[in-house]
């Protein structure tokens, strides 16, 4: 919404208030002013001139030598190149010393030997937007249609000195979508008188009833419809003041018949429509829902296909307008129009919104109907338009408007006590202060002691409940004046849940290991949603998908974080960042059976590392990432949170290296996986060796027991023993460890692999694996022969189970 300050001044006295200050006051009180435009030009050296004589320049075919009366004793000679300049015109003359919006300074000059004392200006040269310049003046100078005072400053005449506020209106303040509403608002802020129009017309004896009848088929979609016939009209250009008003609001003047409806729309917020009565084709207006698939051609020349949720204005047969949105081509006002059917109606906001959004037709009219116009102002707006048709187009108003339906409105009353307002704002407003605010807002009210009953007028349709009144008092009292307090109720302990606390600890741990936290999108492609899904997630169902995705890039909800993390790695590698370690902690979305059942959101953490991990080149150290770097990070995480051991079980998963992948098993249950990307996948992403894990954090958290089993530190020494076995290369360390652990009880405490060897001096298909074992008895000093006995038992069992040989 654009609000002209000059226009606003017609209704409320804001003379002397700087526009910036006004804008800030409006913003702080209710409606955000997004910007202040203008003034475009306000220069007293730019004046009205009268072309007394105009003849061709003696030395230039395309130039004219004009003798211009600029209100001084002598005529000014001005050289003008415009093709439309002529004797007898009132024009805008920029005198020497004037400065035009482009920065051009006007000076006395000689043009092809002839003196020129200024410049006759086009509207564009005066800073008027090209779209507001009438077609016939686009290539030439501006010429006043009416007689104007010679020598008078021209900028105010053309409203170039105006400033315009650009409002960012919230949907509740539809009352400010018009000049009268803004006048109420400003008058309330500054406690000023209001001067509002009170239109009157001379009604002819002839009755509109003889020309038109109105029938409403659906009162919900169209509660009220008024039709007024105005005859004897003459189509012409609107007077300058009216054109100025429209231009200040961003609307292009067309002709008087159309401009008047637009003017009233801006002034009252009531959209009106003028049909050419002679082209309407019947004596009856029927408003009705469209038939399924019915078509009509709107003013913009487009054929629209309609549904029963759209409301049509018809002549009983043919549609002539999509109600509240746009008129039809057939009954458009044209240059030969003499009689109009003026429509003043109330259309249901939702009906208009459906039509305007489905047909992508947002207009000044639909914007107002959608937010709800003021029911009680519909007739007054018609009266105002009729007044202007009479005054500016010579119209004859035929009797009373033909009406159908009602503009009555369920009255709203809001009853409250003074303390209810103060308790919600945190203030101590007195009865006087509250009365003053209500007076300024011009809200009818009754006050008896502490008790108030406010009856908001229909222009303030947003005021319905106590809390709406709280806002009115708060904003008029001023948010700046409300004190700063903190709630004083009972105190809470606040804080984090166990899950939230553990989540923070996972973040802290992973960051300490050197991983950077990443954030990727939850919505991914259909293709990516199928990959790297951990096997414990049931994936017979497709990932959750959007009904209407904007792009295939974000159509499905992720089942693993890994695919998008890999895209992040690829993004970095493409920018020459090769050594990367990322993790992301967040939800994946598991589809649930049944329509309209929420997916199950599972908290997972995933990581991906690539490039060099240890990098200390001047000491000769440069180690790429490998499986055990990432495994070490995971083991650290498990040791930190869990007493139970997580087993890494060799596995073969899609997208991963078949020899370098493991499932993570916690108490026999799969909770995720770790592995190297399959070389093909690495190639697809332009990545070197890359390792990933994807872990179900909820399952991990379920096993966290935060009360440690304390064990007193023993004073008896431990005995350390080394054992090395030669076994078939396929036997895993874990398999041997399990036997060692079982056989080493009750004194075996720890097992640690300290050497693995395969290759030279070792039989083909065999490997040597060496363990360091610690034995300890917490009760007494362990004897050598007790350890020897356990050691022997271990050796025999490993040998027997895996055909192992003891080495060295």
């Amino acid at each position, binding site marked *: 919404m654009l609000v002209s300050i000059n226009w606003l001044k017609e209704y409320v006295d804001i003379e002397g208030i700087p526009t910036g200050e006004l804008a*800030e006051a409006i913003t702080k*009180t209710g409606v*955000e002013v997004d910007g202040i435009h203008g003034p475009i030009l306000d220069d007293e050296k730019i004046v009205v001139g009268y072309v007394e004589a105009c003849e061709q320049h003696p030395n230039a075919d395309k130039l004219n030598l004009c003798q211009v009366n600029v209100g001084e004793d002598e005529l000014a000679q001005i050289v003008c190149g415009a093709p439309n300049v002529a004797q007898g015109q009132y024009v805008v003359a920029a005198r020497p010393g004037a400065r035009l919006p482009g920065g051009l300074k006007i000076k006395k000059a000689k043009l092809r030997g002839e003196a020129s004392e200024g410049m006759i200006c086009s509207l564009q040269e005066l800073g008027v937007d090209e779209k507001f310049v009438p077609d016939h003046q686009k290539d030439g100078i501006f010429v006043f249609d009416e007689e104007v005072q010679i020598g008078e400053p021209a900028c105010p005449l053309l409203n170039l000195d105006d400033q315009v506020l650009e409002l960012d209106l*919230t*949907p509740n*303040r539809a009352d400010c979508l018009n000049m009268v509403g803004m006048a109420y608002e400003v008058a309330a802020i500054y406690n000023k008188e209001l001067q509002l129009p009170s239109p009157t017309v001379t009604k002819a004896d002839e009755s509109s009833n003889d020309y038109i009848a109105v029938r409403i088929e659906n009162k919900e979609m169209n509660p009220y419809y008024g039709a007024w016939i105005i005859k004897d009209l003459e189509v012409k250009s609107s007077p300058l003041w009216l054109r100025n008003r429209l231009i200040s609001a961003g609307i292009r003047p067309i002709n008087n018949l159309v401009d008047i409806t637009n003017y009233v729309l801006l002034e009252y917020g009531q959209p009106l429509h003028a049909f050419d009565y002679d082209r309407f084709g019947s004596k009856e207006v029927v408003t009705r829902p469209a038939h399924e698939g019915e078509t009509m051609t709107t003013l913009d020349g487009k054929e629209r296909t309609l549904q029963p949720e759209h409301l049509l204005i018809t002549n009983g047969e043919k549609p002539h307008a999509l109600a509240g949105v746009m008129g039809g081509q057939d009954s458009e006002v044209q240059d030969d129009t003499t009689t109009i059917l003026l429509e003043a109606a109330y259309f249901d906001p939702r009906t208009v*919104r459906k039509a305007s*959004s489905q047909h992508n037709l947002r207009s000044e009219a639909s914007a107002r109907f959608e937010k709800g116009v003021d029911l009680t102002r519909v007739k007054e707006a018609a009266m105002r338009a009729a007044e202007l048709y009479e005054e500016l187009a010579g119209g004859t108003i035929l009797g009373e408007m033909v009406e159908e339906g009602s503009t009555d409105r369920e009255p709203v009353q809001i009853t409250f006590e003074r303390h209810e307002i103060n*308790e919600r*704002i*945190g*203030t101590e407003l007195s009865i006087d202060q509250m009365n003053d605010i209500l007076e300024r807002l011009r809200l009818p009210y009754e006050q008896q002691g502490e008790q108030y009953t406010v009856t908001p007028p229909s222009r303030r349709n947003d005021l319905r*409940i*106590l*809390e709406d009144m*709280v806002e009115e008092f708060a904003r008029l009292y001023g*948010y700046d004046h*409300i*004190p*700063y*307090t*903190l*709630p004083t*109720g*009972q*105190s809470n302990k*606040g*804080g*984090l*849940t166990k899950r*939230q606390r553990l989540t923070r600890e996972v973040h802290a741990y*992973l*960051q*300490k*290991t*050197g991983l950077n936290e990443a*954030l*990727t*999108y939850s*919505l991914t492609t259909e293709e990516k949603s199928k990959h790297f899904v951990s096997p414990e997630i049931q994936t017979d169902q497709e990932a*959750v998908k*959007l*009904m209407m995705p904007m792009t295939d890039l974000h159509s499905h*909800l992720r089942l693993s974080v890994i695919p998008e993390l890999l895209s*992040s790695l690829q*993004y*970095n590698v493409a*920018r020459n*960042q090769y050594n*990367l*370690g*990322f993790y992301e902690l967040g*939800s994946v*979305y598991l589809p649930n059976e049944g329509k*309209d059942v*929420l*997916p199950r959101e599972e908290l997972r953490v995933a990581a991906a590392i690539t490039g060099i991990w240890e*990098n*200390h080149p001047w000491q000769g*150290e440069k180690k790429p990432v490998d499986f055990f770097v990432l495994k070490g990070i995971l083991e650290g995480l498990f040791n930190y949170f869990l007493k139970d051991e997580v087993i890494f079980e060799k596995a073969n998963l899609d997208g991963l290296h078949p020899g370098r992948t493991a499932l993570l098993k916690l108490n026999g249950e799969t909770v995720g996986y770790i592995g190297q990307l399959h070389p093909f996948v690495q190639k697809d992403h332009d990545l070197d060796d890359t390792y990933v894990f994807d872990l179900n954090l909820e399952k991990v958290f379920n096993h966290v027991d935060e009360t440690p089993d304390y064990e007193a530190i023993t004073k008896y020494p431990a005995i350390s023993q080394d054992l090395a076995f030669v076994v078939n290369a396929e036997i895993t360390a874990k398999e041997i460890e399990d036997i060692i652990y079982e056989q080493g009880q009750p004194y075996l405490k720890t097992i640690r692999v300290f050497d693995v060897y395969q290759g030279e001096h070792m039989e083909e298909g065999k490997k040597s694996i060496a363990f360091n074992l610690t034995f300890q008895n917490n009760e007494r000093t362990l004897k050598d022969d007790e350890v020897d006995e356990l050691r022997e038992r271990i050796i025999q069992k490993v040998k027997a189970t895996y055909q192992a040989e003891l080495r060295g």
Partner: protein
Amino acid sequence: MKERLQSIKQEAITEIEAADTQKSLQDVRVQFLGKKGKITEVLKGMGKLSKEERPVIGQLANEVRDEITASIEEKADLLEKQAIEEQLKAETIDVTLPGRPTHTGGPHILMKTIRDIEDLFIGMGYEVAEGPEVETDYYNFEALNLPKGHPARDMQDSFYITEELLMRTHTSPVQARTLNAHEGRGPVKIICPGKVYRRDTDDATHSHQFTQIEGLYVDEHITMSDLKGTLNVLAKHLFGEDREIRLRPSFFPFTEPSVEMDISCKVCNGDGCSVCKHTGWIEILGAGLVHPNVLEMAGFDSKKYTGFAFGMGPERIAMLKYGIEDIRHFYTNDVRFLKQFHQV
């Protein structure tokens, strides 16, 4: 004998001086003080001396032995010091060479911003509440006073999954869920962070996925001034003690009155500059008193209970605080971007 001792002493001192290693010094010690050493030899020959001479020579011999011992020890110290000095010299390193890098990861700036706000409110007795990112139409809209047909719930603005399910468009449904769970009994003090989704085309200032953090406080006697005081604490915590705040009226379906909070522009200190579009103020968040419909739908008596709610975008806060120019940086994970915020 006397002369002999004097000459041994001279001889010993010369040899001690000549010794240049601990080993050669040890040889000197053996040569003079050892069991077969020269002093011992002299002492062995004492039997031949007269009764009068014996104590005199004996004393002299002891003195010579002590002097030699002292000289040897002194020399030993000296040699040790020299040896250490040489060792230290040999061990000298270039301290300007780079150290071995440790692995330094860090948090994402958005998560850090969220946690910072969480911690501020935890300190004031709030709990952190979370909820699903895929929501029912009821919690995302209806329970927040956005009935069906409301302009703000246009299909064009949200990612629907079915007619009844959608990607949440704000974190406010967590408020509705939490209020419901409290079964009409206050106080409710929560701070709700999370991811939200809107039908926007990604560009420098729009992202189809972004984060929000909201606060809600419902109790008896909660006022607009409590909201103002709380937001003042938040604004100063986030942007510095010298920031001023201002509230101005706005509109949200789930609060009434609704306000927006601006802070005084930190670039121009309120004088007006391009950052604040010459207004002196920068919009930070939306807030208001919880709409009575929202309270009633969740089973709270809106005559007894009032509450305030506020919500903001961590992206916007981080962008303002650090001058980040493009919202997409938060989601492309350029490591050169991420690492800049590990220290803040």
